[in-house]
């Protein structure tokens, strides 16, 4: 039985990854999960300099999901290279670093710094809805996305994944722009912009007013967008959005994802990633699936 998948020449032992921002750099979850069992750890977004993030409250629960507006707090690339990469290198898993920035130059600086490190791939965050400058500003217009993707591709030594926002009119347009600019893969969906109001205090639940919705509540939207995007481009798609078990993950594979990532559900069940890995194997055994490739895009039209 083969569970290996290859994306842009990088081989993963299985298609299960962590979604950026929900798993730190793996340290906090290594108490719960054997990181060696994961296809890849995708780190929290890192910028060229430390970012303090947004004021609290930064998180709020909603029906079947949660809103967050962390604001990409991160310690900056120096600390990241010194602390986080050596930690992750101890494990037999691939490292994918999520890169964020306020300007194209910020992104390029991080991408260049990571060039000589043991990082398998770069995931470019052009879809965070919670910061005022950068991030989503590059991910909501096809021409901006094309521009930043091509500039990053010129400097990047590792294959580049562009992480797309669902907060767009037509996801296929964005997927095509990333592909045309040379992206090696795309990942989606980032969170859906939402809002919650506390009716007793008549105030916003989040200090940032708006936040990104994640969790099981968004899964059908994510499956639909992964299906549309994977049929619009030839480059591989990494699917995510509300995955809480192997059944959810298989849905994304059938929709066309070559790999999947577990996000908010790490907060709910810290063992989710490994349970998804084991559940996919059990599913393959049950249905006599020899190679996971049979599942990717395998939904009957």
């Amino acid at each position, binding site marked *: 039985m083969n569970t290996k998948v290859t994306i842009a020449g990088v081989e993963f032992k299985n298609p299960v990854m962590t979604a950026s*921002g*929900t*798993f*730190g750099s793996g340290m*906090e*979850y290594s*108490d*719960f999960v054997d990181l060696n069992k994961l296809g890849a750890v995708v780190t*929290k977004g890192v910028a060229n300099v*430390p*970012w*303090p*993030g947004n004021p*609290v*409250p*930064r*998180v*709020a*629960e909603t*029906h*079947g*999901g*949660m809103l*967050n507006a*962390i604001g990409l*707090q991160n*310690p*900056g690339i120096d*600390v990241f290279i010194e602390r986080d990469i050596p930690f992750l290198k101890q494990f037999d898993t691939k490292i994918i670093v999520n890169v964020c920035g306020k300007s194209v130059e910020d992104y390029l600086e991080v991408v260049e710094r990571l060039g000589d490190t043991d990082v398998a791939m770069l995931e470019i965050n052009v879809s965070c809805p919670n910061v005022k400058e950068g991030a989503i500003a590059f991910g909501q217009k096809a021409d901006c996305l094309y521009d930043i993707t091509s500039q990053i591709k010129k400097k990047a030594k590792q294959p580049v994944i562009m992480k797309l926002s669902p907060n767009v009119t037509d996801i296929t347009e964005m997927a095509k722009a990333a592909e045309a600019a040379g992206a090696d893969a795309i990942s989606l969906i980032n969170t859906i912009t939402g809002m919650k109001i506390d009716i007793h205090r008549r105030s916003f639940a989040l200090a940032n007013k708006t936040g990104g919705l994640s*969790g*099981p509540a968004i899964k059908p939207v994510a499956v639909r967008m992964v299906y549309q995007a994977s049929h619009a481009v030839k480059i591989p798609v990494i699917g995510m959005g509300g995955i809480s078990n192997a059944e959810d993950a298989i849905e994304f594979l059938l929709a066309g994802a070559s790999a999947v990532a577990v996000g*908010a*559900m*790490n*907060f*709910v*069940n*810290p*063992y989710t990633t490994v349970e998804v890995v084991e559940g996919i194997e059990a599913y393959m055994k049950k249905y006599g699936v020899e190679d996971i490739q049979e599942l990717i895009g395998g939904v009957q039209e």
Partner: protein
Amino acid sequence: MSKKAKIKAKVLSQKMIAPDIYDMWFSTELSKDAHAGQFIGVYPLDGAHLLPRPISICEVDREQSSLRIVYRVAGQGTAEFSTWKEGQEAELLGVLGNGFPVDEGKGKKVVLMGGGIGIPPMLQLAKELAAAGTEATIIPGYRDDKLFLKEDLEKYGRVLVATEDGSVGTKGNVLTVMNELQIEAEVIMACGPMPMLRAIKAYAQEKGITAYISLEERMACGVGACLGCVCKTTHKDHHSHVNNARICTDGPVFDAREVEI
């Protein structure tokens, strides 16, 4: 410190001990490593409310492998918990947070202050201090005469009650007790609402003493990964490098001098 885990637990008992305040014992192996000032995540079972609710540990019984929480019904999650009966299976995440530095109380005049639903963690703290030979003065602050945990606290130290309406003990708050009864402290350990903690921070600063305060914030993961529950710190902490400590992991207990609240 042992590894954190999400594990099954069983409710041993539950009763309401004041309006909206519930007292619940779990049978759980998390009790093995649980200390004063730490907390657990309790999961609602309804499926729509996903995140673990952070609730401080009120008392630990290692021999019986059981753990007590005393909590206030504050929303749909805790409302569900309040319906749980003996034998109910539940899921807990723990043990979380750093806890109070019991050793810092050794040989000193220690005063514990709990405000409202900040009173419960003072019980295990008083118990651990007593076991280490430190008898603390305990000041629980209540709104009115609906007291809870007072008799439990009296087992481990001198208890001086404050009530906002003056119906029991000193009329006022925990610091009114300090001033009116001229209580001397070398170390304060406290948990309660933010205005109370701010006042304690200022009080400790003025008196030149150390205060350890337990903070609270909206949390998601509870284990330091999501960066949802941060507070501003005076010094650059080792983790964030942006003066943002994680309350769930670097706290919830901080030296009051180290946090900007």
